[in-house]
């Protein structure tokens, strides 16, 4: 019964079913969300303000808050993350205690549950530093949260820059800084872009650490010291306060926009990465 051929067939069957299951779940979730929501996504839904008196029910303020959050957290985390990756790959002695410490810490950061970031952000940025519920508190918290993603992915990208480039550059008497700037960073660019876009996905997708630090005011923030409600927080609030069929429709519509946004981010990643890799190779 269990001849090698039969075993092969059974295992092949299992592999195919796993793949089908994975795709099935994905299609199911997407179809469920989008089919229920797409009917209510129109131009005014996206560009209108959000009011509770009922005249406008758009998600524009949430889109803006999300955008602010993304820009601010990325501009805090990206330089730090990229420079850390450079330090780890180009400067630090591999295997030294320092590297081990840094790596352990980034790995720990990567594994800390996001709710713990929320707790920390609330205690530290909101209360201890007195920044209050604000885009800034939120962005600082999220910056720490995405730091490991940027560090790890950038590190991978830098490591995979062929050793031959490095040898050639050093062989020509170039300094380390020059080599990094002219050769390594350009060659690692596709990977760095990927890491940034992964981080954007993470920022867009977080809820708990965001509303614990940035609050949930549904208004376009005037400055980084204002509170703001990101799309995901908005969706979360909608789901806890679903009263009428109309609320449901709005929740599905918001979820649809979120999914489409994530899809757009992924496609942009692909596009930019391809463009960069064509430019350099």
């Amino acid at each position, binding site marked *: 019964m269990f001849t090698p051929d039969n075993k092969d067939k059974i295992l092949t069957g299992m592999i195919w079913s796993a793949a089908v299951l994975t795709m099935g779940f994905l299609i199911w979730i997407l179809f469920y969300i989008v089919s229920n929501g797409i009917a209510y996504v129109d131009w005014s839904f996206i560009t209108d303000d959000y009011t509770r008196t009922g005249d406008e029910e758009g998600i524009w303020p949430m889109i803006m808050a999300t955008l602010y959050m993304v820009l601010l957290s990325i501009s805090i985390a990206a330089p730090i993350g990229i420079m850390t990756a450079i330090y780890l790959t180009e400067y630090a*002695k*591999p*295997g030294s205690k320092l590297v081990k410490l840094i790596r352990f810490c980034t790995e720990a950061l990567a594994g800390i549950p996001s709710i713990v970031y929320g707790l920390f952000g609330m205690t530290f940025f909101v209360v201890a530093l007195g920044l209050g519920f604000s885009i800034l508190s939120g962005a600082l918290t999220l910056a720490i949260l995405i730091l490991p993603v940027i560090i790890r992915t950038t590190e991978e990208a830098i490591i995979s820059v*062929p050793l*031959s*480039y*490095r*040898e*050639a*550059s*050093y*062989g*020509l*008497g*170039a*300094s380390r800084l*020059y*080599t990094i700037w*002219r*050769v390594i960073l*350009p*060659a690692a660019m596709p990977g760095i872009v990927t890491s940034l876009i992964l981080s954007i996905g993470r920022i867009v997708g977080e809820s708990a650490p965001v509303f614990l630090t940035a609050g949930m005011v549904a208004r376009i923030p005037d400055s980084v010291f204002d509170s703001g409600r990101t799309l995901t927080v908005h969706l979360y609030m909608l789901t806890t306060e679903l009263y009428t069929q109309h609320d449901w429709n709005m929740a599905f519509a918001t979820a649809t926009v979120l999914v489409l946004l994530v899809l757009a981010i992924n496609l942009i990643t692909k596009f930019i990465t391809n463009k960069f890799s064509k430019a*350099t*190779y």
Partner: protein
Amino acid sequence: MTMNTFEIKDLDLYYGENQALKSIELAIPHKQVTAFIGPSGCGKSTLLRTLNRMNDLIAGVTINGQVKMDGADIYADVDVRKLRMRCGMVFQKANPFPMSIYENVAYGQKAQGVKDKKTLDKIVEDALRSAALWNEVKDRLHSHAFGLSGGQQQRLCIARTIAMKPDVILMDEPTSALDPIATARIEELMEDLRKEFTVVIVTHSMAQARRIADKTAFFLMGELVEHGETEQIFTAPKDKRTHGYITGDFG
């Protein structure tokens, strides 16, 4: 009296625990071509990379002994970057940077802070001429280096090295990835280079060593078995192992 560019004394090199070079004693003469030959893994590349301290890039390398370039101990008080500018290096697989032909050749000068366009243009042209590549690329200096063929890329790497105005050119199997025609071009080029530079070349082809080298050094398992005039090594080797290798008994 012949002058020596390099004088290597009692050199040991370890990759971690593993000894790759064993008490090497060797002098590399000025403005001549010296070839390193020997079976795979015998330490040819390792020794070559010791000459411009390229092994510094590898973690866990320990070096004992002395390497002197023009009398200065390169492992003592020497600026590594200056050393590498004086000892250009060409690798087995052509490794142009992912940028234009012009940028590739100007790279080393720019890294030293040279900015003047005229100066750079001149250096680039001279270097490409010396590398016998100018005629082929003069109309597309600003197109991407990856558009060149394998042999052209290798000559580009040589040009890039020449542009640094080095004293020495170190070559690690520069033709082993090339077809016979491209190989012939590079070998011709080497005929010209020997007039101006001290050349050290690692090769696995004994025929090539014989064709181009003034001096040949034969290595076996980390040891320098024998070195001397190329003719003498190939026609009257003193060591039985050298004889075995060149007559094809092993390797």
